[in-house]
């Protein structure tokens, strides 16, 4: 793990901004933090102006973005920008566009799942969705050659990536991601999501959060926002242990029209694609 970038100073205050309810965030403090880093501020504005966030006219200042988008959205944009810059994509073995589409897709879907199932911490769900696959980057940087082979084999066999990682590397992206998240001192529940999003039943800190990310991850992969290859499998959400966890804590989830939810998410996916291509052009 030594090969990995150290955590930048802006990240930790940001994570704590994200962990707090919106009404307790000091707007001036946040805009100052953003403005202190020119390139992050610039990327933030680019994202704020993408169709995903509904802007048709330019937002040209961070304060303008706060007013136009609201604090909650801005925080999301900000953390995304920091992450994107934090992890230099030249070293990646996975296509960065594919990775970010999957991560943003999962974040967006986790928020929507949370909203529709009655899980109250929708911002947390977004953050956890965004960060859940951090370990893919860790694996890609730590085992560059081996990881490239893993990706290739997983694509050829059309199997889930973590299964192939486990077989070939002996460590999957859930484990390596959790190591990295621990090193960067992420909040405990985010660490748990990263570690257990393929093994929800083990979750103890915040099982519904881990379960929501697990479901979002799989829905993304079934709707074309996966790891860039076809996964030959059936996903039966209603028989997934993650579904049982969500419905146990939030019985309202039983009423979710999963078919309609899926069709609605397709609209978000189109927007995420255009946003990612606009931001990472």
């Amino acid at each position, binding site marked *: 793990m030594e090969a990995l970038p150290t955590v930048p100073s802006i990240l930790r205050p940001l994570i704590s901004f994200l962990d707090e309810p919106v009404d307790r965030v000091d707007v001036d403090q946040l805009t100052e933090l953003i403005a202190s880093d020119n390139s992050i501020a610039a990327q933030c504005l680019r994202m704020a102006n993408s169709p995903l966030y509904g802007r048709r006219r330019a937002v040209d200042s961070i304060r303008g973005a706060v007013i136009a988008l609201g604090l909650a959205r801005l925080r999301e944009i900000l953390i995304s920008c920091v992450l994107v810059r934090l992890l230099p994509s030249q070293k990646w073995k996975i296509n960065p566009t594919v990775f970010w589409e999957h991560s943003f897709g999962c974040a967006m879907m986790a928020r929507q799942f949370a909203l529709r199932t009655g899980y109250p911490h929708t911002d947390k769900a977004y953050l956890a969705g965004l960060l859940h696959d951090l370990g893919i980057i860790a694996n890609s940087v730590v085992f560059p050659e081996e990881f490239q082979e893993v990706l290739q084999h997983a694509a050829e066999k059309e199997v889930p990536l973590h299964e192939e990682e486990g077989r070939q590397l002996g460590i999957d992206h859930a484990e390596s991601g959790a190591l990295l998240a621990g090193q960067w001192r992420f909040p405990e529940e985010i660490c748990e999501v990263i570690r257990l999003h393929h093994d929800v039943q083990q979750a103890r800190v915040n099982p519904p959060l881990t379960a929501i990310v697990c479901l979002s991850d799989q829905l993304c992969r079934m709707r074309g926002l996966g790891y860039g290859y076809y996964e030959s499998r059936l996903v039966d959400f209603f028989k997934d242990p993650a579904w049982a966890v969500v419905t146990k804590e939030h019985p309202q989830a039983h009423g979710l029209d*999963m078919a309609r939810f899926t069709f609605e998410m397709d609209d978000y996916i189109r927007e995420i694609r255009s946003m990612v291509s606009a931001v990472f052009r």
Partner: protein
Amino acid sequence: MLQTNVAASCAAIPLPDPFLFRIRDVVYQVAGIFQSDERITFLEDRCLRRMKALSLRSLAEYFDCLTMRADRDAEIRNLLNEITVGETCFFRYPAQLEALRKVILPAIIEAKGKLSFTRLRVWSAGCSTGEEPYTLSIFFQELQQSLLRGWTVEVLATDLNERSLERARRGVYTDYALRNVTPDVHQKYFVPVENGQFQVSEAIRSRVQFNRLNLLDDSRVIFMKGLDLVFCCNVMIYFDGSAKRKVVQHFHSNLLPNGYLFLGHSESLFGYSNDFRLVHFPETTAYLKPSGLR
């Protein structure tokens, strides 16, 4: 200043008429077919056509027409006709075929093979002019030398409309219906006939059995037995709630355990069946009839 700018830019965003979204919800509730945001201008366009025919001026009035008037069911049908017209073509849902080839057929072949069964029965319910059953017939033919070696595949195709069935039996199509057909498949299975049209080859046509059938005719539908797969695309949207329930129940008893029902791209059975379970495959969904062992 900044705030004025922001307000001005918000005003500049043309928002769709809120009644359009209410119409979308009505269409989904009544017909179970969802119009995505991407298709919302398409939906608007189709509503405008109907409004013109009815001399209505606003979507709000048209919404009333779909929800409050005595003849609302007829009007919903008119709108659905506008929404689904000209949609059918060969290889319309490639993701369904991919799921069959990669996931479903290997599982069925393994399970049935263990019992020494080598027969597959597939039903295209509401086959219209034949594009869907012929697509399936071509698809199975292409697998006959690999996955389905030694297997017999029956494709049954039914429709209520005798005229559609006549056209289906002839199997003659324009280029437009063949727009998704690859050159290789085109060359193998389509024969040029008069007027620049193409006929499906004899080998493919002979594999499909066409019959007239009303899906609400209990006494006949119960004879469709032992099916592995049912395809019913953009058909159930025309049935009302109780008819839909009945048809879905029939499909359930027609299918073998672990069989699948496929619907059209944005159709849903939500609220109409507790026996089927929605499952996901890459880029497509289907309804599974779970086996007794859960």
